[in-house]
């Protein structure tokens, strides 16, 4: 059997869910052997999962069926079977016309198609855009992408890491909470969750320009390993400060192999891309929000005191309870788990 045929078998098993651990390993090693197959595999996987939602039949159809199935049912006159079929064919026609109308109304002109990707809390997705840029989307996030011949524009709520495919003719612009990040062939992270005061942009490679909707003329240019927090919704633009995350020696960026994924797992800002939850001097209240999104749980505090504990650390494969147990080693608190809900309370209130 050729590798090509074997790939078909393994991908089929993966999609249908009949694959075992050995099969997964074999699939992975084949994809490493033929890296060009990985993109089409992930597209196929996306397609497989995006099952079209079937609507509901017209309401009268059920009455017609019941009139035949249960002739004793009170029904307006006697409906013959022929008549019934004739009637519901008419409904189908009407439905088709309505759908066609909607189709033409809402079809965007030109070839600008929109793609929206969402992640639930506790879920992370990696996907490739049509321009070959790669996006990692963190939990509880939503990304709307509009790509066409002249522009690449994305709207983000939540957190995402972008590895942008170079294309000088089509600027890559991310919009997040009133802040715009404009890039050309770049790897960068954007964090802008709803309810978060500002939009954080961290640059790993290349160059980006960051500017607020309200002050498009005052742009901040980031260099690799610089980070900027900007409040795009404030009425007066707050003074913005760049933070240097890591000093880099002269010539260091040039030495980096361009094709490797650049999410630096040693960096707190981008650790999530490598499936690491990392936090640095974060208070428990904020960390709880992070844990909620990471694990898809609800966390509430019964007492005020634990909210202000400060933690630094990193989790990779831990479950949420293992993570909380680890936090208990440094600070005094207790927790209760009920299904998906976790309550945290100080030790003094519990007898």
């Amino acid at each position, binding site marked *: 059997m050729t590798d090509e045929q074997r790939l078909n078998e393994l991908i089929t098993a993966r999609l249908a869910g009949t694959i075992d651990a050995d099969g997964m390993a074999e699939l992975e090693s084949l994809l490493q052997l033929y890296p060009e197959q990985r993109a089409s595999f992930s597209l*196929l996987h996306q397609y497989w999962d995006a099952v*079209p939602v079937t609507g509901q039949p017209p309401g009268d159809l059920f009455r017609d069926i019941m009139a*035949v*199935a249960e002739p004793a049912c009170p029904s307006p006159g006697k409906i013959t079977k022929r008549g019934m079929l004739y009637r519901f064919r008419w409904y189908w026609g009407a439905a088709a016309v309505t759908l066609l109308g909607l189709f033409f109304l809402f079809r965007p002109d030109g070839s600008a198609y929109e793609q929206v990707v969402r992640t639930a809390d506790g879920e992370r997705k990696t996907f490739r855009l*049509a321009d070959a840029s790669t996006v990692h989307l963190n939990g509880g996030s939503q990304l709307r992408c509009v790509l066409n011949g002249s522009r690449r524009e994305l709207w983000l709520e939540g957190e995402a890491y972008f590895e942008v495919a170079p294309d000088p003719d089509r600027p890559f612009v991310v919009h997040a909470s009133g802040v715009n990040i404009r890039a050309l062939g770049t790897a960068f992270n954007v964090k802008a969750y709803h309810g978060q005061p500002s939009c954080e942009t961290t640059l790993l490679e290349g160059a980006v320009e960051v500017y607020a909707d309200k002050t498009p003329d005052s742009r901040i240019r980031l260099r690799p390993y610089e980070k900027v927090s900007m409040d795009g919704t404030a009425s007066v633009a707050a003074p913005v400060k760049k933070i240097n995350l890591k000093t880099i020696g002269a010539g260091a960026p040039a030495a980096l192999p361009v094709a490797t994924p650049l999410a630096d797992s040693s960096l707190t800002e981008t650790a999530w891309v490598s499936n690491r939850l990392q936090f640095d001097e974060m208070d428990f209240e904020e960390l709880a929000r992070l844990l909620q999104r990471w694990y898809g749980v609800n966390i509430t505090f019964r007492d005020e005191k634990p909210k202000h504990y400060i933690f630094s650390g990193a989790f990779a494969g831990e479950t949420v309870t293992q993570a909380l147990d680890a936090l208990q080693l440094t600070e005094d608190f207790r927790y209760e788990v009920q299904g998906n809900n976790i309550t945290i309370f100080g030790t003094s209130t519990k007898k």
Partner: protein
Amino acid sequence: MGEAEVNTLWQAVCEADDQSAFRTLFDGFYLRLVRFAADLAGTREAAEEIVSDVFVQLWKNRRQTAGVIRLKTYLYTAVRHRSYNYIRDHQQHRWLGLDSIEEPAEAVQLPSLEWKELQQQLDKAVDRLSPQCRTVFRMVREEGFKYKEVAAILDISPRTVETQLVRAVARLRETLQAIQHPVR
């Protein structure tokens, strides 16, 4: 609709003649079954008639079938039987499972394809599959049936189900490759 929900609704139909539960089942399955029947019987009109008949019979026979069936499999099997009877009665010659009628995938010349367009291209590729291949693909992907269940409903061997599904995946991969590396 999950299996547990289907079971609960079906139980309410059998034991309490619950028409609103029956309606929920009808609303959930009708269009999916019509699509399945259309694949087998060839026309949408025939498919609607077949599926409506199946629901009429299901309600009439609810007492006899109470509890002894797995409803989803029963519905698909019943629709298949009726579809085959329909073809027999209408003396239509259909080429089931013959790959020779599959048209080759078009070499699509689009340098940058958006997700929606891509989906449409793949949908078209599915439509171009042989009838049996397409039916198997949809039953596993859209209805979540296991190979064995598909085999039982269509009265073919599980091995054939797998072969057909691998064939479908191979076609879709060819389509994707044609899209990603258009022939100039």
